[in-house]
C-alpha cells in the first residue's frame, strides 16, 4: 500500500489539482483578506493624483502572464479613470499591443465612455466626477505603441521620450500613426521625469527591474509595478526606497481590486490560488508522511528518486 502511494501515478495529482482549480471557479467562496502595505502604497499614490495630471502606464506582459498581471492592469486603469488623470500607455513587449487594445476597448471605451459596468451611474458614488466627460483619444489618453530595444528604450525615455516614440498609434487599429507633436496629452511631457506617476504591469524581462535600474533610481521617479508572484522576491529589495509600491501576482491584484471595489479576475483567481496552494501544501505533507513511514519500516533504505545535489 505504502509502496503504491510512494510511486503514485502523477496523473492522480493532476486530477485533484484540476478539481482544486475548477471548483472554486464555479462555486466562488470569498475569504477575508487585508491589503498589504506595498499594495496600499500603490493605491495611495494613485489616489493622491490630481485630475489632469499625466500618468504613464506600461503594459509589459504576454498572453501567458495575462491571468496573473491583467487583473491589476484592469483595476488600476479603472482607478486612473476614476481620478480623471491623463493616461499615456505603451509597451516594450511585442505581444502586448493586442492586449493594450483590448484594455482600451473594454475599460476606457466600453465602461467609462459608455457609463457601463464599473462606471454605471447606479454604482456607489465617487466613480464618475461631477463634470463627467468621455475620454477622448489624444486629449485624455493615448497609446504610444510597441517599441523594440528592451532596456535601451527605457534608458532613452529617461532622456527623451519623443526620440523613442516619435509617433503614436492611431485611435483605431490599422490607422495612420500620429506624430507625438500633435498629441495634446503629451504636451509638456519630454521625458519620464514629467509624469506624475509611472505604473507598470510587468511579467519579466524587460520589466520593473529594468525600469528601476535604468531610470527610476537615476532620475528619482515615482514608480510602482505589478509583477508575477515568482518575480516578487526579485523586486522586493527595491520597495519602498526605489519603488513606491509593488503588487505581487494574483494576491496583490486581488488586494488592489478590493481597494478600488472592483472584484474581478484577481479576486476569483485568488480563490483558485488558495485552493491550489492548499493542495500543494497537502501534497508536500503527504509526501513527507509516506517518506517517514517508509523510513520507519526500512530504516536503512536509500532515499527515493529526485532531490537535488547542489
Amino acid at each position, binding site marked *: 500500500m505504502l509502496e503504491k502511494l510512494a510511486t503514485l501515478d502523477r496523473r492522480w495529482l493532476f486530477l485533484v*489539482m484540476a478539481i482544486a482549480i475548477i471548483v472554486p471557479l464555479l462555486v466562488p467562496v470569498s*475569504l477575508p483578506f487585508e491589503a498589504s502595505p506595498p499594495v496600499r502604497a500603490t493605491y495611495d499614490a494613485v489616489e493622491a493624483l490630481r485630475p489632469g495630471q499625466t500618468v504613464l502606464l506600461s503594459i509589459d506582459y504576454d498572453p501567458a502572464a495575462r491571468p496573473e498581471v491583467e487583473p491589476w492592469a484592469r483595476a488600476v486603469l479603472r482607478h486612473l479613470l476614476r481620478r480623471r488623470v491623463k493616461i499615456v500607455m505603451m509597451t516594450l513587449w511585442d505581444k502586448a499591443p493586442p492586449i493594450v487594445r483590448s484594455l482600451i476597448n473594454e475599460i476606457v471605451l466600453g465602461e467609462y465612455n459608455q457609463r457601463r459596468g464599473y462606471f454605471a451611474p447606479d454604482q456607489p458614488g465617487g466613480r464618475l466626477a461631477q463634470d463627467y466627460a468621455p475620454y477622448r483619444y489624444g486629449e485624455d489618453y493615448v497609446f504610444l505603441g510597441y517599441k523594440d530595444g528592451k532596456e535601451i528604450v527605457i534608458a532613452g525615455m529617461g532622456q527623451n521620450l519623443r526620440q523613442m516614440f516619435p509617433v503614436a498609434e492611431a485611435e483605431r*487599429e490599422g490607422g495612420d500613426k500620429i506624430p507625438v507633436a500633435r498629441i495634446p496629452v503629451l504636451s509638456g511631457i519630454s521625458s519620464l521625469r514629467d509624469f506624475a506617476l509611472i505604473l507598470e504591469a510587468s511579467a519579466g524581462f524587460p520589466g520593473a527591474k529594468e525600469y528601476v535600474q535604468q531610470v527610476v533610481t537615476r532620475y528619482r521617479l515615482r514608480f510602482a509595478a505589478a509583477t508575477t508572484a515568482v518575480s516578487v522576491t526579485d523586486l*522586493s529589495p527595491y520597495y519602498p526606497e526605489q519603488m513606491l509600491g509593488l503588487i505581487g501576482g494574483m494576491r496583490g491584484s486581488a488586494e488592489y481590486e478590493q481597494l478600488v471595489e472592483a472584484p474581478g479576475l484577481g479576486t476569483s483567481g485568488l480563490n483558485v490560488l488558495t485552493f*491550489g496552494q*492548499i493542495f500543494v501544501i497537502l*501534497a508536500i505533507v503527504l509526501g513527507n508522511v509516506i517518506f517517514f513511514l517508509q523510513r520507519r519500516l526500512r530504516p536503512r533504505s536509500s532515499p527515493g528518486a529526485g532531490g537535488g545535489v547542489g
Partner: protein
Amino acid sequence: MKQTLPLVITFLIGTLMVAEFFVPHAGVHELTALLQEWGLVIAAAAFVLGGINVVQVNIPKIARRERDWGYRVVLIGSALAMVIAGFIPASVFKPETGAPLFGKEGIVFTFLFDYVFAPANATMFALLAFFIASAAFRAFRARNLEATLMLSAAIVVMVGVIPVGEWIWSGMPAVKQWILDYANNAGRRAIMVGVALGAVATGLRIILGLERSHLGD
C-alpha cells in the same frame, strides 16, 4: 592565423566594451553603440538562417514519411499561416469600414493571435500548476536538517500568501514577509555576487584568449 585573428578581434572588442563602462567619452560610446547595432543586424539576419534550419530539418522528414511526420506538417503549416497573414500588406484587401483583412493588425492575424496563439501560450504556462504539485509531492522531503528548515520556510511563505494564513493566525503574513526580506534576500545576494564574479571570470577567459575551445583548441 586562423586562430590568432579571431583572438585579436575578441580581445580588442571585448576590451572596448569593458572600457565603455569606465570611460564616459562620447567617442567610445558611439563606437560601442555601432558595434551593438551590428550585433542586432546579425541577430536579425540569423532569423533567416533559423527559417532555413526549420525547413532543412523538417521537410526531408516529411518527404520520407518518418515517424511523427504529421507534427512536422503542423509546424510548417502554422509557421507559414502566421507569416502569410502578417506579411501580406494591409492594403491588399481593405474594406471601406473596419480593420483590413491582412497585415499585422489585420483580422486574420488578430484572430490567430487571440484564439490560437494566446490560449496555447497560456496553456503551456498553466501546466506549471500541475507540475509544481507533482514535484512538491515527490521531491520536497525532510531528509535532513537543511531540507527540513527549507520545507518549513516554504510552507510558512505559501500559507502566508493566501487568505487562509491570516485566518489561522494574523501574524502569518508578517512572518512570511520577514522570511522573504531577510533569509531569502541574504541567500539571493550571496548567489548574485557569485554569479557576477563567475560572469566576470568567464568574460576575462574569453577576452584574454585563455578559453579557445570554440576555435578548435
